[in-house]
């Protein structure tokens, strides 16, 4: 399939959709619609016209329909256009956000602490690509984009799985204009590959200078970086905090969605009482960890999932899809659950193991079609209560919660800042909680480590004082054997608060103050039978 050559890649959406689109073109209902090339061609034609005319709603509607954007040439342009349409000033979002958010000069030249992890993960990416030259080119692009984005938005953290998401973008942008990207990248990747061999972690300043030169040269790489940056800021920032707290919040939506669909299943599987960690790789990567982006099949499910997420502006879509898959595999899950009940130590292990075994994402195309269709259908009607675990700055209720209006870059920057602060607060609370659980001596260790000399001096002084006291008592005892012992005996009889003892105002100054006048204490003795002992009041 080739796209007409007259499409404008620069688009701003302003007009409203007025063009009539037939159901067959949208292809929303029929599972066999794209077996018909003509219909696919018609859809593509409509899509490209809508794109050219700047009709965002039509583009989004087509992207969210069966088959999504059909091919990478269209997909690439549509993703970029839809992402740009989400913010009032896209250039400001990707160019100046760092400056605004961190109140520091753009950090593009400084290295990010997660770059070592990036290089470890890039080495393990695109394993499914058979051709080694293509694989190396894709890895080079992936690493450049990851390093660029993470350096530019240095307040965000890289997570394992972000590379899987970006790999999908890389494949789409690479195949979407394969000739152009490949030709432009060939020279860049060969020179870069040699520099990578000598230094496994491309973090030197010469590398970044080189990258910025490549970056200026390659328009497509610029588009790719822009799309990834916007996707990260608007859709993925919950996952890019310093801890997994907000990711876990999102995961907790899945059991609530399952409960909405099938309450019995939810309770039989005790999904309310276990952490849904089994879904983490699917959610963090929008299924791209299990469904690696094929470079030969442009209509693969993973691309359609990304089409749906970007078109509907919804990070709820992957959560809904996951819930629909689990409920769709109910029969197999129940069977596996029953046959494995005695094999596991606890419910968390059991549920994780059987879900991983049954929900392995290697499904028949018809099952994917069914669950994607269910997700498209249910997305708009999801009740608000499922978002109960979510913080108020989350993408699910701000930038990727199916909002229609474009947001201002300053607002996005504000969400990021607030979310980072909120996350830091949570992390601090948790570590405080962990500290409190430690035994008493463990709490002193950091203090001692902080100022070891102080504590050493203090310990020595305490030891010397103890020895002196001991010597003094011994000396005193030898010299005046009768004067100290009765006094100590007397102290023993004090017990604690000096109750039942002689008046010792220095031990209990309130005692004398609370002493009742004689006539009242006489009355009390008479009426209650209590002794007019002051200890009654003190106690």
């Amino acid at each position: 399939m080739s796209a007409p050559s007259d499409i404008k890649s620069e688009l701003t959406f302003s007009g409203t959709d007025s063009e009539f689109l037939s159901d067959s073109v949208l292809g929303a209902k029929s599972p066999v619609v794209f077996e018909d090339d003509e219909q696919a061609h018609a859809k593509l034609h409509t899509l490209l016209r809508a794109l050219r005319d700047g009709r965002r709603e039509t583009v989004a509607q087509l992207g969210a329909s069966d088959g999504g954007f059909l091919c990478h040439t269209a997909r690439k342009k549509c993703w970029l256009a839809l992402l740009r349409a989400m913010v009032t000033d896209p250039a400001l979002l990707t160019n100046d956000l760092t400056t605004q958010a961190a109140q520091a000069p753009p950090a593009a030249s400084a290295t990010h602490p997660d770059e070592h992890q990036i290089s470890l993960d890039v080495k393990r990416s695109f394993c499914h690509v058979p051709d080694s030259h293509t694989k190396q080119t894709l890895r080079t692009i992936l690493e450049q984009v990851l390093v660029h984005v993470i350096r530019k938005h240095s307040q965000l953290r890289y997570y394992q799985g972000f590379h899987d998401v970006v790999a999908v973008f890389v494949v789409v942008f690479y195949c979407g204009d394969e000739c152009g990207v490949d030709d432009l990248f060939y020279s860049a990747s060969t020179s870069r590959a040699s520099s990578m061999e000598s230094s496994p972690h491309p973090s030197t300043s010469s590398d970044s200078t080189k990258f910025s030169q490549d970056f200026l040269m390659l328009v497509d790489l610029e588009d790719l970086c822009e799309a990834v940056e916007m996707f990260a800021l608007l859709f993925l920032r919950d996952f890019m905090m310093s801890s997994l707290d907000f990711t876990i919040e999102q995961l907790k939506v899945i059991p609530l969605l399952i409960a909405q669909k099938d309450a019995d299943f939810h309770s039989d599987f005790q999904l309310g009482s276990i952490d849904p960690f089994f879904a983490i790789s699917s959610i963090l990567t929008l299924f791209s960890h299990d469904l690696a982006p094929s470079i030969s099949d442009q209509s693969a499910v993973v691309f359609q999932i990304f089409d749906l997420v970007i078109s509907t502006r919804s990070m709820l879509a992957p959560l809904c899809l996951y819930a629909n898959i689990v409920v769709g595999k109910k029969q197999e899950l129940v069977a596996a659950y029953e046959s494995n009940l005695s094999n596991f130590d606890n419910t968390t292990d059991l549920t994780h193991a059987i879900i991983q075994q049954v929900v392995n994402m290697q499904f028949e195309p018809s099952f994917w079609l069914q669950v994607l269709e269910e997700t498209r259908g249910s997305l708009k009607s999801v009740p608000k209560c499922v978002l109960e675990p979510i913080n108020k700055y989350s993408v699910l209720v701000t930038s990727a919660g199916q909002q229609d209006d474009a947001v201002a870059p300053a607002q996005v920057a504000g969400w990021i800042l607030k979310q980072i602060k909120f996350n830091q607060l949570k992390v601090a609370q948790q570590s405080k909680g962990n500290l409190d659980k430690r035994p008493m001596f463990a709490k002193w260790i950091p203090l001692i480590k902080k100022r070891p000399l102080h504590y050493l001096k203090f310990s020595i002084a305490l030891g010397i004082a103890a020895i002196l006291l001991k010597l003094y008592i011994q000396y005193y005892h030898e010299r005046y054997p009768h004067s100290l012992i009765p006094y100590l005996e007397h102290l023993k009889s004090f017990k604690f608060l000096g109750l039942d003892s002689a008046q010792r105002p220095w031990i209990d100054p309130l005692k004398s103050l609370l002493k009742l006048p004689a006539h009242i204490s006489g009355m009390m003795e008479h009426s209650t039978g209590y002794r007019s002992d002051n200890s009654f009041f003190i106690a």
Partner: protein
Amino acid sequence: MSGLRTVSSSSANGKNYDSIMKILLVGDSGVGKSCLLVRFVEDKFSPSFITTIGIDFKIKTVDINGKKVKLQLWDTAGQERFRTITTAYYRGAMGIILVYDVTDERTFANIKQWFSTVNQHANDEAQLLLVGNKSDMDTRAVTTEQGETLAKELGIPFVEASAKDDTNVNDIFFQLAKLIQEKIESEKIVGGQGKDGSININGGGNGTKSNCC
């Protein structure tokens, strides 16, 4: 905490194994945890294996001293941020393999950190094992002696292995399974055999460690 447990089977319920052991692999990102596991379970190796996100589960049945033992193998993500999630799976683990990369000193230095995380979250009775992976590589940065010294210091057994050329990979899992088996046997003698041959060793750390389940 439910403590260590072998789920024993008995021919009566038609299972084809005698007991189950839960084993966990932990260590820094990229040390080759998944590679060791795939080599052991599927006898495969790929130089660019996929990253683990969160936690993955695999199973393999082996023969230990004439008994069929089903090994439940839990592979964990190495990136620090996933520790919140992976530690939830330490519960009930009978064996924990601490893996480092002999070509990367940083991963070796972090073993102590992993050791303390394990001690914090796993049962006291869990059997640990230290593994230095990638022993085939020329670019070694951690010597065998360093590995042995650390293992001695931590009081745990040590194996150097290579998932790539399949050196000692089976040893890791068999040695660990045998140690666990021996532990269970000695617990059985101390605490008596449970119903259906299963035993439950509590993680409470007091004198009586076994009781029926």
